[in-house]
Structure formats: structure tokens, C-alpha cells
């Protein structure tokens, strides 16, 4: 089976420092992979390479059978790679509804129609409304995004990703900074996506309970390199993972 997304010897150097170093891995539809690693391990940088915000120094990226290494971020989004950001990354002065509608509109290809009234394009608005309902944001749909509390901004970030309807979902710490009662909304949404066996889900996450609950597979990055890849139970048992996460045995290995 062709993997839905694959990176081959992916490397990016900033000056002499290799933030992502020679990472080769492949992901299948229907699989939820959690990417873990300490701060500075290259998780977000690897995400940026896959979604196109950065261009690799070396290596190649494939979606399905097609190489996408040279495609721009917007072209990759159109090709079905959707990305939510770690630091909230919205259109602050536009309303919540407009934020989501923009994502719906991008998917529908309604961007260039210059003379139709955006608010009256009901099929776009309805779809945006559905996504807002799923993410429990309907009640704040008409507020500017900047007026939302942090937790709701995180939800909106995920809502925009869902509205793009990609094949590949990339979540970068979607529940970071969320309160205990807010996080389940996002986790439910991710669990729902997982039930639809055609989607590939990549998730950067630190919270171990989340990882245990959702992961089919865990990939461990450390200093830009892929150091472990496998089923959660296997990976969690590896000495190197215990070392990274528990900080023990570092001297002995060195």
C-alpha cells in the first residue's frame, strides 16, 4: 500500500545546525501517529517541512505517489495536507465564522469570485457552521478571533484545519494551554477523525495520557534525528525514550 505521506532523508540545516537530520519515515491512511521528543528535537520543524513553510536542505517528500518537495505551502494545502499550528495563528480581526469560512472557501475554490456576496454563499456558510458546532464555537461565531479566550482560540485553530477537509491532518500540540474541561472537545474531534479510516493523522503531543489514549504508533525525534518508531508499548519501553523523557542514564550512554 502506498503511504499517504513519506519523507526520505529529510534534512534542514540552519547554518551548521541540522534541525531535522536525515529523517525517513512513512505514514498510512487510517493511522494516528504521535510524534514525541524533547523541546528542540525538531518536531515542529519537521512539520514545517512537510506542510511547506520551510524548504528542506536535502531529501524529498512524497504525498501518495507524487513528490511534493518543491510545492509551495498553498499548493500543498490544496493537495490535501492540512496543518494546525502550535502557536495560535489566526486572522485576529476577522470573526470566528470568517476564519473558518476562509478555510472552507479555500477548499471549495471560491476564492477568486470577486463579485458575489461572501455572506450569502450559503453552502460555504453552512459548512462553516457545521464545523463551528463540532468544535463548540457556534456561540462566539460573530466575535473577532482576537476577542476569544486562549482555549477557544486553540479550538478555532483546530476548527480551521477541520474545515479544510484534508487527507493528512497535522496537529501541533492542539491542547497546549487548554483547561482540563476544554481539551476533551479537541481530543473527541481527533478521535472522530480517526474513526474515518481514510485520514492520516500526525500529532505532536507531550501529554502522556493523550498519547496513550490515541496513538497507533509513536515516532521519537531527538536532536533532529528519528531515534525510535513503533507501537506505543514497544516505543515507551525503549531505553532511549525513557532516557529522553525521564532524563536518566544520559551520562552512562554518553
Amino acid at each position, binding site marked *: 500500500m502506498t503511504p499517504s505521506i513519506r519523507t526520505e532523508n529529510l534534512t534542514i540545516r540552519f547554518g551548521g545546525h541540522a534541525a531535522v537530520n536525515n529523517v525517513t519515515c512513512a505514514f498510512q491512511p487510517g493511522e494516528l501517529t504521535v510524534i514525541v521528543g524533547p523541546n528542540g528535537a525538531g518536531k515542529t520543524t519537521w512539520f514545517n517541512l512537510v*506542510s*511547506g*513553510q520551510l524548504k528542506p536542505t536535502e531529501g524529498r517528500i512524497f504525498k501518495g505517489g507524487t513528490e511534493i518537495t518543491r510545492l*509551495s*505551502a*498553498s*499548493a500543498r*494545502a*490544496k493537495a490535501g495536507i*492540512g*496543518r494546525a*499550528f502550535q502557536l495560535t*495563528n*489566526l*486572522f*485576529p*480581526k*476577522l*470573526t470566528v*465564522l*470568517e476564519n473558518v*469560512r*476562509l*478555510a472552507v*472557501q*479555500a*477548499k471549495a475554490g*471560491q*476564492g*477568486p*469570485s*470577486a*463579485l*458575489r*456576496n*461572501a*455572506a*450569502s*454563499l*450559503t453552502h*460555504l*456558510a*453552512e459548512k*462553516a*457552521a*457545521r464545523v*463551528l*458546532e463540532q468544535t463548540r464555537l*457556534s*456561540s462566539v*461565531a*460573530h*466575535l*473577532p478571533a*482576537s476577542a476569544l479566550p486562549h482555549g477557544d482560540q486553540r479550538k478555532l485553530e483546530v476548527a*480551521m484545519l477541520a474545515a*479544510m477537509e484534508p487527507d493528512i491532518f497535522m496537529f501541533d500540540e492542539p491542547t497546549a494551554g487548554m483547561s482540563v474541561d476544554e481539551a476533551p472537545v479537541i481530543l473527541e474531534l481527533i478521535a472522530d477523525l480517526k474513526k474515518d479510516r481514510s485520514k492520516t493523522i500526525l500529532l505532536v503531543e507531550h501529554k502522556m495520557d493523550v498519547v496513550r489514549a490515541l496513538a497507533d504508533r509513536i515516532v521519537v525525534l531527538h536532536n533532529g534525528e528519528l531515534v525510535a518508531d513503533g507501537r506505543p508499548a514497544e516505543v515507551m519501553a525503549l531505553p532511549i525514550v525513557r532516557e529522553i523523557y525521564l532524563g536518566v542514564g544520559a551520562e552512562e550512554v554518553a
Partner: protein
Amino acid sequence: MTASTIATPTPMRTTSTRVTIGRVIVYGFAAIVGVCLLFAPFLFPDVRAQEVAARICVFIVLVASYDLLIGYTGIVSFAHTMFFGLGAYGAAIGLKTMGRGFEAIVLGGSLGVLAAFVLAVLIGLLSLRVKAIFFAMVTLAAASVMLVLASQLSNFTGGEDGITYEIPRFFSPANRLEDGNGDQVRLFGVPVNGRLYLYYFVFLSSLALFYLLVRIVRSPLGTVLQAIRENEMRAEAIGYRVVAYRTSVFCIAAVVAALAGVLRAVWLRYTGPDVTLSFDIMIDVLLMVVIGGMGTMVGAIVGVVIMTLAQFYLKDLMGAGAEATAGLPLLPELLNPDRWLLWLGVLFILLVYFFPSGIAGTLLGKGGRK
């Protein structure tokens, strides 16, 4: 909440009644301006007031098209009067060389608009990838070159003196509408002649262009432009090609500015660097869009009306004020009409201080910094 209630956005619904009052003031003001302009030949029949009304019509289009760039998309350009000038010179050269006919306006104007479009595509594709400040510099350079060209190529452009020409007979005061007895037909005491037709030609064309711009900002494209202004990287990440959008909006604004230039040239029967191309006009346009309120469209109406009225009538007002206070110490000196620029400056400072997002922007509650 159902889909249908979400589908009708009243963006400020949840904010205070202060904003509602602001909306009433701004849209009420715009409506009054609209009515005044619609009936301008009857309400203000003197020649100077006609000139003011026609200038307001054309400048609303020019400033609104600039708002599309700077307010909605966040593109800072100093070349907007260059495009305005290209349209004006196109029509002017057409009328000068082909004589006073509509075909001269259409052909000359089209060539001017086409030149503006081509130039906008080139500038856009070559330089909208770079950072905002460099783009602003490129447009400044292009506009300077155009200004030099206009004064150097005096065979075509009349140099610094500009071009004077005649417009179609249909628009001349001699084209009188006569009744059966050969008497001038009057409507509310105003003679129905070519001057009246010309005003309505300018008014209706401006109205159509302004309406087009309002449609654009309310369209899906308009939302994308605002998204690009707010967060370029995210707009790219959800699948919008930012450079393509920027270039196309730059072209749309350039074409609209050039069409406004055609209207200006036909109305004035004169085109020169001072009335179309100069940086003084560019600064006027900038001030108008800032005072009115960026990213509002209706702000163009507010800004243009306040600025134009101040430019034309502040002197008169001050003259009257100086006379009225003639007996008092100091005041007549301060109100001397020669000091009108001082008061215009004071007016700007007060406006910017009390309305940091422009008059319409502040009243509509579009303020609030990121």
C-alpha cells in the same frame, strides 16, 4: 444555533450600542453625501460648487480603490496617482489628437487603462514577493519616473503645462435642451445642457465604480484579502496563493484608479502633472484614506468629503471668522485666511488624535490593535 442564523453576519451584534450609534452616524453621513451629490447641480448650482462635487465623486473612487490596497490587503503603494494619471493622460491625449469625440475618450481612455494594467502586473509580479517596505520604495520609484516622463515628453504630454483640450459637444454648455419654441428647458431653474449631462456622467460612473469596489470587499475575494493582511503565512497555509492575490488586487486597484483618471480628465478639460500625477495628490489620497478610516470603504466618502470641503472652503470660513471678530485682539490675526494651512494641520492632528482608526473606522468599531 442553526446554520441560518450564522449565515447572516451582523459582525458587531455582540458589541455595545455605542458602535450601533457609530454605524448610524457613518452610514447616515454617507447617505446625506450621496443625496447631495445626486442633486448637486440643483442644490449647489454655482460653478465652484460643481467643481467641488465632481472632484468629490472622482476622489471617492480613487480613495476607495486605494483603501482596497492599503486598508483591505495591507499593500502600501505610492504609485496610485501614477495609475490615476495614466488614465487621465490617456483620455487627454486621445481628445487632443483625435478631436472632441466619444471615440477619443473611449480609445484614449482604454489605452491609458491598459497601460495602467500592464504596469501594475509588472510591478506586482516583480516586487510583491518582497517585504512591504521595499514594495513601497519600488512604487515610489515608478511614480517618480512617470512624473519625470510626463514633464519630459512634452510633445505628447504638454510637459509641466499639461494639455488643454475640448470634450465632446454633447457635454458642452452650448448643447442646450430646447422646447418647441426654441427656449432653454429648465429643471428647478437649472438649465438642462451639456454641463448637466457631464456632471451626471461623472457622478454615475463614479457611483458604478464605487459600487464595484464595495462588491469586491464583500465577496469571498474580499475576505481572502483581509486574511492576507491579517496573517499572510496562515493564508498561504490554508491554500491561498498570496502573491497571486496581491498582484490581482494591485491590478484591480490600478484599473479603477485609471478609470477615475479618465473621468477627471473629461470633467476638467485639462490634464497636467499637478492635477493627476503629482505626489501632492498622492499625499491627499493617503490623508483621505487615513482620516476616513482604512479598511472600511465608507471611510473613503468621509475622508474625501471632509478633506475636499476643508481645502475649498476653510479659507472662506476663516475670512468670515476674521471679519466677525475684527474688533477683538489676536483672533482676527489667527483667523486670517492666509493661515488656512495652519488650521488644516491642526484639524488633521485633532482628527488623528480622537479617531485613531480614522473617523469611519473608529465609529464602526474597527479599531483595536492586534
